[in-house]
């Protein structure tokens, strides 16, 4: 089949993201929500669903859900209650999941994604609601039994449902990337897709370009990395178009992504979908998010990547590329923010963070948290370069490595000890220039006869004589002055 056949179609994609919230305790009980404990250590009578127990809502869960909503400019619902989603499965001991059905705490809103051509696109959100995670079943460890671990049962989640606004796997990739960045900036979820603290399901359909009606929707699950989200959707789009082109019809179903093969396979058809019999959860009193409460959360909001991007490009005059790299990770942006509190050479600050700092971290497989040079000291290093006391290369290759070893030491102190401070004193440089010119009368004559290229040779000699300490700019100026007079 030729590529042009695929070009006749467009994909319609909506994503559902589940984000595990970084609370200490669970959503409706006080047992620990921390990941990684031995099986069935973080449990309680409530999370085990014992009769007679009553849930009690964790305040922080609501705070985090509202933060996410505000970050996406969603409407925050004032009157919230919870719902029971009923189904029988061993990982859900009380027989229902506490969730929000008709009253999601956040409605509407959007996130902006950047497309390959440099433009931005708004992806609308349908809703964000709070719910709880289920326990974990292991089917493969024993021949006859399924083993169940309830540490995860009751861990708080928010589910973020997008509108079917994405038209390609690349857009879906950008959307998940943006969402992960947001939850990390807000510090409400660690965004780790491999460990499952951020999970994504995709609703994918295709239709002929220009068609109004949506095609048959297929839900794809089990994509445990952002690149797998992209691969799975790419595969699914091609699969559906091939079926349509072959004149086949297919039904709405749930498919699972096989990361090894790069394909999707059918899990269950929607016809045999569960009947969840939602009804209001009577055990949890309603929650009213009044204006005062929403304002108090708004005040706690950190600067978000979009706002920082605008600030860097519009106020600081940095390039879009620089702004993108600096805002990709919250920790990098935070350091840069601190740094520009101490220096107004924003471009140099950006170059240092994106260059020396990032390559040091990359080469040593470290995180920003492992970088201990105070922003104030890095700003001082930039000031030394700006005042011609240090050359860029000496700063980067000699002084910066010592700063990493001894983060509390000032760069001036280090440069003095290394004896690498540049000399821009005119008298000192003139002395060197005179020495060099006197030692090379023949070359001086050649230069003055028109061989201007010799300037580089004279500069080299001056620098050598100064043991690399002469300020090159100043040396060039004085050298030219002597030669051209």
């Amino acid at each position, binding site marked *: 089949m030729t590529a042009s056949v695929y070009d006749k179609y467009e994909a319609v994609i909506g994503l559902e993201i589940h984000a595990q919230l970084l609370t200490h305790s669970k959503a409706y009980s006080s047992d620990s929500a921390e990941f990684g404990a031995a099986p069935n250590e973080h449990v309680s009578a409530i999370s085990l669903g014992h009769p007679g127990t009553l849930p*009690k*809502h964790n305040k922080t869960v609501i705070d985090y859900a509202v933060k996410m909503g505000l970050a996406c400019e969603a409407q925050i619902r004032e009157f919230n*209650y919870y719902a029971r989603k009923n189904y029988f499965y*061993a990982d859900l001991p009380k027989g229902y999941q506490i969730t929000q059905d008709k009253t999601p705490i956040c409605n509407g809103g959007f996130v902006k994604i950047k497309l390959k051509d440099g433009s931005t696109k708004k992806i609308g959100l349908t809703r964000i609601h709070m719910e709880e995670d289920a326990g974990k079943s292991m089917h493969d460890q024993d021949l006859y039994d399924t*083993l169940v671990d309830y540490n995860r049962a009751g861990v708080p989640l928010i589910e973020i449902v997008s509108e079917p606004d994405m038209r390609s796997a690349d857009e879906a990739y950008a959307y998940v990337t943006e969402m992960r960045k947001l939850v990390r900036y807000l510090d409400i979820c660690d965004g780790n897709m491999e460990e499952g603290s951020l999970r994504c399901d995709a609703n994918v359909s295709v239709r002929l370009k220009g068609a109004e009606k949506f095609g048959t929707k297929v839900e794809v699950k089990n994509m445990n990395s952002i690149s797998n989200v992209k691969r799975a959707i790419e595969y699914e789009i091609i699969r559906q178009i091939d079926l349509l082109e072959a004149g086949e019809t297919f039904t709405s179903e749930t498919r699972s992504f096989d990361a090894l093969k790069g394909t999707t396979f059918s899990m269950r058809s929607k016809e045999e979908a569960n009947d969840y019999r939602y009804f209001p959860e009577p055990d949890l*009193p*309603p*929650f009213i998010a009044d204006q005062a409460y929403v304002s108090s959360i708004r005040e706690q909001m950190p600067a978000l990547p979009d706002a920082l991007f605008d600030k860097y490009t519009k106020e600081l005059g940095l390039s879009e590329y620089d702004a993108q790299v600096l805002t990709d990770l919250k920790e990098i942006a935070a350091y840069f923010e601190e740094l520009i509190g101490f220096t107004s050479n924003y471009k140099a600050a950006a170059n240092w963070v994106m260059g020396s700092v990032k390559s040091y971290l990359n080469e040593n497989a470290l995180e920003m948290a492992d970088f201990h040079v105070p922003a104030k000291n890095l700003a001082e290093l930039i000031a030394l370069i700006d005042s011609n006391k240090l050359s860029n290369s000496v700063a980067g290759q000699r002084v910066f490595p010592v700063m990493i070893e001894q983060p509390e030491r000032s760069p001036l102190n280090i440069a003095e000890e290394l004896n690498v401070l540049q000399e821009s004193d005119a008298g000192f440089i003139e002395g060197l220039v005179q020495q060099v010119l006197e030692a090379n009368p023949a070359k001086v004559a050649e230069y003055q006869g028109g061989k201007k290229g010799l300037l580089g040779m004279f500069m080299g000699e001056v620098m050598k004589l100064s043991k690399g300490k002469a300020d090159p700019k100043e040396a060039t100026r004085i050298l030219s002055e002597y030669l051209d007079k």
Partner: protein
Amino acid sequence: MQVTNETIDRLAHLARLEFEKGEKDKIREDLQKILGFVDKLNELDTEGVEPMIFVAEGHNVLREDVVKVDITHEQALKNAPKKDSDYFRVPKVIKK
């Protein structure tokens, strides 16, 4: 609404219950009566009346995000019909 044997089968499946042959007839009759009672309630005009979800007043009953350990691992597993030293054990059912 007419309660049929199919209705009972579907509800039984959702509730993971099994009935003997004779029981099913009785349950069907009971359920039919219950629905009849609900239909009686439906005769009341509730147009424009907000549904009452909560009997008690009160809202925003919340707790701070603090971890409290109520039961130990051993206590958690104690009443399980089947278990090992780490896990609850249940019959193998793969989600369709």
